[in-house]
């Protein structure tokens, strides 16, 4: 299991407002717990969010290396994805350029693209959020 999957699971249990999550497989077992007050305040935040309509962005992809973000391959005219596109996990959403190397960036969550969260050619590093998805 890749460590990035844990991030995805944390997002799921947070959005579902679960207190505990357990996963067992042949090689490992994983248990994630959230403190009860955070579960309660999480619920409060959700309730508030409905009123203020300013929820945290839903991250569709993040940078895993240092480099410059490109929303399209230099050989193409159009970005890999555009707001409104429906994407699946693993979909190519852009590239990170390091020197002469172009590294693909893939979606870590599925959904409808809301917007890019960085400028074209912006310097990004590990963990920089790149793409937001529309809340469902």
């Amino acid at each position, binding site marked *: 299991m890749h*460590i990035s999957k844990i991030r995805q699971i944390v997002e799921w249990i947070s959005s579902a407002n679960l207190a505990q999550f357990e996963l067992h497989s042949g090689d490992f077992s994983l248990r994630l717990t959230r403190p009860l007050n955070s579960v309660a305040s999480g619920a409060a935040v959700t309730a508030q969010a409905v009123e203020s309509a300013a929820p945290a962005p839903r991250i569709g992809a993040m940078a*895993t*290396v*240092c*480099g*410059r973000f490109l929303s399209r391959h230099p050989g193409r005219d159009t970005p890999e994805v555009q707001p409104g596109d429906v994407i699946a996990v693993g979909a190519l959403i852009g590239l990170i350029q*390091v*020197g002469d*190397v172009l590294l693909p960036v893939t979606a870590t969550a599925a959904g409808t693209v809301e917007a890019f969260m960085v400028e074209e050619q912006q*310097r990004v*590093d*590990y*963990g*920089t959020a790149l793409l937001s998805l529309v809340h469902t």
Partner: protein
Amino acid sequence: MFDTVLIANRGEIALRIQRACHGLGLKTVMVYSQADAQASYLQYADEALCIGPAAPGQSYLNQQAIIYAAQASGAQAIHPGYGFLSENADFSERVEAAGMTFIGPTAACIRQMGDKVAAKRAMRKAGVPCVPGPEGALPDDPLLIQRIGDEIGYPVIVKAAGGGGGRGMRKVERSEDLLPAVSVTREEARRAFGNPELYIEKFLGHPRHVEIQVLCDNHGRGVWLGSRDCSQQRRHQKVLEEAPAPGIDAALLAAVGERCVRACQQIGYRGVGTFEFLFEDDEFYFIEMNTRLQVEHPVTELTTGIDIVQQQLRMAMGEPLTYEQRDIRTQGHALECRINAEDPQTFIPTPGRVTRWEVPGGMGVRVDSHVTAGYQVPPYYDSMIAKVITHGATREEALARMRTALSQLRIEGISSNVALHRDILQDPDFCAGSVDIHHLERWLKGRRQAE
């Protein structure tokens, strides 16, 4: 040449290297893991880039991520610090293959010194004294092994060629125990280091750990910077170091120091390095060479007046050494206490938030640390949080300054081993000088039994 250095490390040494770079007008790129994102030293860097999550394997040991960070930021050189990738020959090679300068020796030198058998062979060739034992790896033939052991005389120690830091070694007291010990150690070495090669040496009963710092430029010139004594160890980890090593004849030390420099010239060594020796009954025995900057380099800086990290950067830029051996003078005495975030009794690491942090100062007192009040000590890395270093005209003066300095070091929020250091500084045997490498363990055991 380079004008921007990427610092591929964390904690106090990342800050130490950053200061040396800025002192030379070099720009710095600091890479960090998510666990270190709040560290204050990142603010002073010209650029700071996150390279991965907390786990060292995905950040500070992630060669590809570090090289990408260097390319993305335009750094032309990489300083590995100590630990992590500092003695990784493959990393050195990859950095150079990417057209950047690795601030350290060539991959070939790192490999040669990382292989204990090859290192010992090179040292013998240069006349550096080694522990009695055959030059090569142990043969497979039991009869030959037995003959070698009997020739050295017991006790002997069987060591894995790929081991180090106390791992992969076994003491043998009697002739009849040799063959079983060899087969167990060989199997362990195969599993732990992927290299079943073993070698065998005379076992020394009460040695001190004495080491010699060298500087070598890219033009074949080298100097040695006196001695350090790092005999105060717990589980093969140094706790308290000093320079110079007390009570060693100057002419004897000079003869060994000169041979260390000669060995460097013979193997084409460049940069900073340390020759580690066991020292017993006025004899030096080479154990290994560290092909990197060491934690305890400041005690040598204080006694020689040479900024070792700055000199390392200058040599990596191709500058020749501007002084010769006769210009090197050591003055006074220096001590270094490694302050760890750990319980002073159980030695269990105590990560957490530092709520109060006040460090001592004054004449002859130096504190190298990345910690500030409010700093969160992460649980993922080495527990060292500071080095308190004192210098005095004499060892007694350096000791007195250290006692005062530690009494004025205030750390709250987490436990630290300051109390242990305060006790060591009251130990009459240590204060008299020249304790052996087992002294601290014996002293700790005595203390436990007394309680």
